[in-house]
């Protein structure tokens, strides 16, 4: 057990300064304004500049395009960039996908993809969810059919966030519908510029942009297959476990759950409201002088504290619920002025609380709905028997699971 402040040697101190200078130089007001306009949560210029410094994969050696940092160095890079407001979506998804690429990609594409990802020119998004499938990603219906050395893909995916800024999508496809549900799946790294792909933008009411992606007779080489045919579920497991926050950390230098970025939104939001409470209102009184205000801020802070301490899949649920409940409560506390959005005259902190309240709704679904996580906890942590639904056997023809 150790929660001490980490004393930095000269080398790590210099790195911290370097990342802070990077933030000042690259994560500019223009980047932030653009982020509000596009809802991309990604900035290519910043990402490429990170790639130049080896910070997309900070622990990779320099000859692979990394910065050769130790785990502490990587932690410094991550904390400083996130504190600086890095638009991070594709940094995260690319790193998850690369876990599978490293392990399973064909010799024909592996090195180019890894080098491009480290440089920043190659980004990857997640092609998991389908229009009528929701969180049941193993129920994928998008079909891939072999044709000689190629595959022909037909189907549609939803919520492929960042597809319009990525070279590849990490696609889960059905390659054998006669096999049990989890056994007829194959993963591909599909180039998004292939003919037959159409990307349609979708806006969330938080302002974030995601995409629907349609695949109409898309032909790709077998080189883009990731892992064995019909072994997709095992291939997906590595990236999915990281996304769900499953797995132990022994360094004390990692976030303890996948909900951390959601909790960080709550942290910023609470800071905004704390600053508001410490600022005299029109009548000259401080909101913070009101014990009711102090209690309500404290009650939200307790839930945030709990969220920041909740590990693994449980942490994802707790972080999103702390934000969901907390943002709604803080909006009530601010009153109508809290509703003023980014760009409105008089909006508090550029409408951060308004944004958090909108963003929270999606946060309960990102990476799988909170219900998916509850099922995971019920089955794996509490040892409750798994529910049998008709869909569990949808692709089952013989006996077996």
């Amino acid at each position, binding site marked *: *057990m*150790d*929660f*001490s*402040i*980490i004393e*930095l040697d000269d080398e790590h101190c210099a790195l911290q300064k370097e990342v802070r200078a990077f933030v000042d130089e690259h994560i500019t007001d223009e980047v932030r304004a653009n982020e509000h306009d596009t809802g991309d949560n990604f900035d290519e210029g910043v990402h490429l500049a990170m790639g130049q410094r080896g910070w997309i994969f900070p622990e990779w050696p320099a000859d692979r395009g990394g910065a050769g940092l130790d785990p502490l160095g990587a932690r*410094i890079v991550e*904390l400083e960039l996130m*504190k600086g407001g890095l638009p991070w979506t594709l940094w995260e998804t690319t790193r998850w996908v690369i876990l599978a690429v490293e392990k399973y990609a064909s010799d024909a594409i592996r090195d180019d993809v890894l080098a491009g990802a480290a440089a920043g020119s190659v980004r990857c998004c997640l092609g998991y969810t389908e229009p009528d499938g929701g969180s049941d990603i193993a129920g994928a219906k998008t079909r891939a059919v072999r044709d000689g050395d190629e595959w022909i893909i037909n189907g549609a995916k939803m919520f492929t966030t960042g597809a319009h800024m990525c070279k590849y999508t990490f696609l889960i496809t059905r390659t054998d519908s006669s096999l049990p549900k989890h056994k007829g799946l194959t993963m591909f790294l599909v180039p998004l510029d292939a003919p037959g792909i159409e990307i349609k933008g979708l806006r969330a009411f938080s302002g974030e942009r995601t995409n629907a992606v349609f695949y109409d007779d898309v032909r790709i080489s077998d080189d883009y297959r990731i892992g064995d045919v019909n072994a997709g579920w095992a291939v997906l497991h590595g990236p999915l476990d990281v996304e769900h926050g499953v797995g132990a950390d022994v*360094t*004390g*230098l*990692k*976030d*303890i759950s996948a909900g*951390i970025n959601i*909790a*960080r939104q709550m*942290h*910023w939001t*609470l*800071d*905004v409201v*704390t600053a508001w409470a*410490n600022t005299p209102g029109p009548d000259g009184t401080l909101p*913070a002088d009101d*014990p009711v205000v*102090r209690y*309500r*801020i*404290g*009650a939200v*802070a*307790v839930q945030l*504290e*709990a*969220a*920041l*301490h*909740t*590990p*693994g899949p*449980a*942490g994802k*649920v*707790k972080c999103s619920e702390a934000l969901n409940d907390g943002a709604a409560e803080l909006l009530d506390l601010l009153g109508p002025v809290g509703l003023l959005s980014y760009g409105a005259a008089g909006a508090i902190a550029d409408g951060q609380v308004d944004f958090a309240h909108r963003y929270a709704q999606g946060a309960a679904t990102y990476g799988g709905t909170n*219900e998916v996580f*509850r*099922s995971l*906890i*019920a089955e794996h*942590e*509490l*040892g*409750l*028997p*798994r*529910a*049998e639904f008709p869909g569990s056997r949808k692709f089952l023809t013989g006996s077996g699971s």
Partner: protein
Amino acid sequence: MDPFELRRLDFSLDEDHEAIQDAFRAFFAKECPTSVVRAAEPLGYDAKLWSRLLALGVTSMPLPAESGGDGAGMVELSLVAEEFGRALAPVPLVEHMVASRLLAAAGGADDIVADAMDGSRLLGLAFASLSSPTLVSSAAVADTIVGLDGDELVAVTAVGDRALLPNQACLPYAIVDASAEKRSLLAADGRALFARAVREWKVLAAASLIGLTEGALGPALEFVKSRRTMGVVIGTLQGVSFPLADVAIGVAGGRNLVRRAAWFLDHDQDAEPALQFAALAYAAQVATHGVTVAQHVQGGLGFTVEADASLYFLRAKGWALAGGDPRQDAARVGELRLTTAPTR
């Protein structure tokens, strides 16, 4: 926790921690089954269990080496408190440990500390001012109650038996009237000493509530794994499994929060001063929700006296309230947040 601060986030237990945890878990499993908890009602005290606990060193553990103790830290004590809570042990262990540390820190009460260490004298804590008669959760069995009277830190020793006031939690509640008991002054201005003791109590009480909640979860899980309705095991129903998952989520976060709050008291007590209050406020919420879910998933059987679920349910509130309204702890967290400049 500042989610951008460069601190280690290592919640792992070392071998010594695990040894403490194993020893106390095994002890309570053997010496404190629910039949012992029931037999101790309504007083909430089992003298035999207390004497067996002495052999495990629970009274010397919390005291510093200068006082002849074993010098355990708050992290170690929180592990003990969690196991104590899981077993619903009918002894005022948390109050005794914190009060003995407070007396040792105050100095000048070596005789009481010596008695507390050999277990011959039970100590309790008064959270409200002792300037007027006040309700104390351990006073029907504790000999000496430590608390503030104005700014003064005082120890109040009973001259006769204090009458038990029967209560929901089967805790040994009684009135302490300092004017009618033997009152000794420990410090003219004991506020800082007492404030530290309160933070220690918050952490250990929170640890015991987390243990209690997980204890309640055990029989509830066993029940829903075997009970069937309309042809299915009820544990497969999301209306049953999801509330239980929520309890587990609360326990997991509450436990980490407790341990980190304990660690800060041991290593960096001025940093994150709200942690201990947040730990208690959250543990009280987790326990209130947890015992309710745990009894409810057992349907009509859950709220019968025969069901062990009732034992957890009836104690959760009483343990949390022994130190006052947990919402005041949330208010305290708010005050501390407001007086610390935002980081952005």
